[in-house]
């Protein structure tokens, strides 16, 4: 037998439901040797995760029909095995970890119960050995092995601990193959490095093969030996990592490579101040009480001071929970806060409700998730004309022309006005959301992670659009993101948030080249992977 651990030959899978039948995996072939780390890259919907599930035979056979192809694991075709034989392989020889550990760990069982379950199934029934096994695997995974952790339930652990625990459970049986499906996408950047390092270490120590499924090119570049690039259910290109990145063959791979954000703006801008934030504090009541002293608060924002000029982009970077979105909501006057927000020379919190409603058209927002930001029951025309009809008396014909212009502005055809949001792709929806935001000719647009839910190719296009609109209308942006790469590509100034406070702020270039605080340094290192 060769040292091939896994061989996929001409795999083709169809997906069916009551109404449709669609080909989702088209004739793919892959090979994996022992101890190899294979990166599987592709946009969402390219069939990466389905391939991972197919290897483990975890697909619902009624909905996913394997039309042809073979999957050899250790020389045996997995697809022909009975469910009983598969049970011996799953978890024991092939293991999986998923994106969201909170969803893949059972919330009503303690960690000990969950890990013992696997040990009992695949390793030994001798309960006296359990403690040793758990201790050794926990120390490998960088988890403390004490009763406090073992007896806790998933929600009591931190995000990093959860993912480590998930990995510990998956590798406790020393599997030959671990399929990691976007293992770090849900984690904060600082944790990503640790978890990926752990996976690589485990792979080296145990001679375990690893399939790393991800959309993040930089991550794949740094951690995998070989790369397979998937698009629309097909494998576009497979090669060693260095070959792919230095000498990409297929046009799609080349396009992917070109989409990594690079600095897209020049330094020129106006010196007139548009927005000034003084001592902004925001807190949420977590425990109510009749007595003021006994009330407990969660501080979402502490002493924030910011300023933004006309035509300028301020990038706000921070991990989830650092208060980025709270900042956006405060500026939009949708939250109660303490402090002062001066917009265009006017103090917003002193305004009457009427004045505020008139002022609102000057600051707009674009959200992260293009699926929840457009009302599914309104047509594009209705969505775009909504704001316009609040502030002006337009006739139906005037509204129509205005909306057509808006659509053209964001690169969509005016014939799309009568369609509904679900008929558009994520990128197109985001364009519509941008069109809605600029429909009132605002002075400031807050972009709350506008490209995080999009694929790299689309992300690049949207960023281009954002920049060109800024130039045309001299707009100011507050660009919120967890991705320092994207932020640095389009912002003039950066402000780094951590646990509700500003750690550092200044000109983009000076922060990137000479970060002052530890946290910023860590953040830059972990995202850009030049360790």
């Amino acid at each position: 037998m060769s040292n091939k651990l896994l061989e996929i030959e001409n795999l083709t899978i169809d997906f069916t439901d009551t109404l449709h039948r669609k080909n989702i995996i088209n004739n793919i072939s892959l090979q994996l040797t022992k101890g190899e780390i294979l990166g599987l890259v592709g946009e969402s919907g390219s069939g990466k995760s389905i391939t991972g599930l197919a290897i483990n035979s975890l697909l619902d056979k009624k909905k996913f029909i394997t039309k042809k192809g073979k999957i050899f694991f250790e020389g045996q075709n997995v697809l022909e095995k009975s469910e009983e034989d598969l049970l011996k392989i799953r978890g024991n020889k092939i293991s999986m970890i998923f994106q969201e550990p909170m969803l893949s760990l059972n919330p009503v069982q303690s960690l000990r119960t969950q890990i013992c379950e696997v040990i009992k199934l695949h390793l030994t029934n001798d309960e006296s050995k359990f403690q040793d096994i758990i201790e050794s695997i926990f120390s490998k995974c960088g988890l403390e092995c004490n009763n406090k952790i073992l007896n806790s339930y998933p929600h009591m652990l931190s995000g990093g601990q959860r993912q480590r625990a998930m990995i510990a459970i998956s590798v406790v049986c020393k599997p030959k193959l671990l399929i990691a499906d976007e293992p770090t996408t849900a984690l904060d950047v600082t944790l990503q490095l640790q978890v990926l390092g752990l996976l690589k270490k485990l792979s080296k120590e145990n001679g375990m093969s690893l399939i790393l499924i991800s959309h993040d090119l930089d991550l794949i570049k740094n951690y995998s030996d070989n790369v397979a690039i998937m698009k629309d259910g097909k494998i576009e290109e497979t090669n060693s990592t260095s070959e792919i990145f230095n000498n990409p063959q297929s046009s799609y791979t080349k396009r992917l490579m070109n989409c990594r954000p690079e600095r897209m703006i020049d330094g020129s801008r106006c010196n007139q101040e548009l927005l000034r934030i003084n001592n902004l504090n925001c807190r949420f009541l977590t425990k109510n009480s009749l007595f003021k002293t006994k009330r407990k608060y969660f501080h979402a924002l502490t002493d924030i001071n910011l300023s933004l000029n006309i035509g300028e982009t301020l990038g706000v970077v921070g991990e989830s929970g650092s208060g980025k979105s709270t900042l956006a909501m405060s500026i939009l006057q949708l939250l109660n806060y303490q402090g002062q927000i001066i917009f265009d020379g006017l103090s917003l919190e002193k305004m009457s409700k009427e004045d505020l409603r008139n002022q609102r058209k000057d600051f707009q927002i674009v959200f992260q998730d293009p699926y929840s930001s457009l009302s599914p029951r309104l047509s594009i025309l209705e969505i775009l004309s909504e704001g316009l009809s609040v502030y002006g008396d337009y006739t139906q014909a005037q509204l129509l022309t205005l909306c057509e212009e808006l659509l053209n502005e964001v690169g969509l055809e005016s014939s799309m006005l009568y369609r509904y949001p679900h008929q558009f792709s994520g990128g197109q929806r985001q364009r519509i959301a941008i069109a809605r935001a600029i429909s009132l000719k605002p002075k400031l647009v807050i972009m709350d992670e506008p490209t995080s839910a999009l694929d790299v190719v689309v992300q690049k296009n949207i960023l281009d659009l954002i920049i060109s609109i800024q130039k045309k209308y001299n707009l100011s942006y507050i660009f919120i993101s967890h991705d320092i790469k994207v932020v640095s590509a389009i912002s003039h100034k950066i402000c780094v948030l951590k646990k509700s406070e500003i750690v550092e702020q200044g000109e983009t270039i000076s922060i990137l080249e000479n970060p002052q605080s530890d946290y910023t340094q860590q953040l830059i290192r972990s995202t850009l992977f030049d360790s």
Partner: protein
Amino acid sequence: MIGRSKVIWEKFKSSRRNIYSLYIFSFIFILSIFAEIISNDKPILMKIDDKLYFPLIVDYKETHFGGIFETEADYKDDFMQDLIEKNNNWAVFPLNPNSYNTINLNNSTPNPAPPSLHNYLGTDDRGRDVLARLIYGFRLSVIFALVLTIIAVVIGIFFGAIQGYFVGRTDLFLQRFIEIWSSMPELYLLIIFSSLFEPSLSLLIILLSLFGWIGLSDYVRAEFLKGRNMDYVIAARTMGLSNYQIITRHILPNSMISVITFLPFRISGAILILTSLDFLGLGVPPNTPSLGELLSQGKENIEAWWLSLTTFFVLVGTLLLLIFIGEGIRESMDSRS
């Protein structure tokens, strides 16, 4: 919306049980709306002495035909029957020549009388035609249930929307109010009111509407709590839309699915409530055609199978069809499958 409802309709259609249930129910209900033409004791068309009469539409006095009474002609009476059979006279009676309150006075057997050529499904204990009472009773039940459901839905959406959208204190006070309101003994109130006032259909609808919306408002409230935090709602607020505009344009249309899903079940529930109240004698005024009253007669006259069995089948059939339709709607609206 066009796209989504089309998908739902396609999905609904894909099950034959759903589509047949819907067609059969609609057919029967539309038929029952024309109950006066199908089951009546007045002829649709009548020709007497070379003159055409439309007794179904126009009231003719008996004196008009040479009778003695100044009241409306009784076309089942011997006098009119003789007249119709004379010379070239004729009359076209509806399929079932009895109305819900037509009493068969010529019955040879004591009431309740078994099925015969005069009364296809027999008579009840007062000699009224069972088939006619079933047809009119079915119509009354369904219309009653529709009205009750619509009122409950409107009130439920109103309160649920206010609670879910404004949250905080408004929500708190309304929720406490609902808790107190729903702990009032509905059945006793019904008994008390039916003895205080003259029982009538509108009184029943008012009383039942007072309580019918409570369960529904909870669902709407939950949908609104979810909806008010959606990105498109926040975007609408930043564009300066008023609360009313946000509720009616953005949140309500997206919350309607849970309401629509419940409609068929609420309708069948309302039919059941009316039947049970009538069965207990607390429902519609006497002489109104009602399924519950027929069932209660069936209980009194256990040997008269045509009373209890026929009513039972009509009731079970109606509820079954409604539940099938409801099941179908629920499945087609479930975006997960």
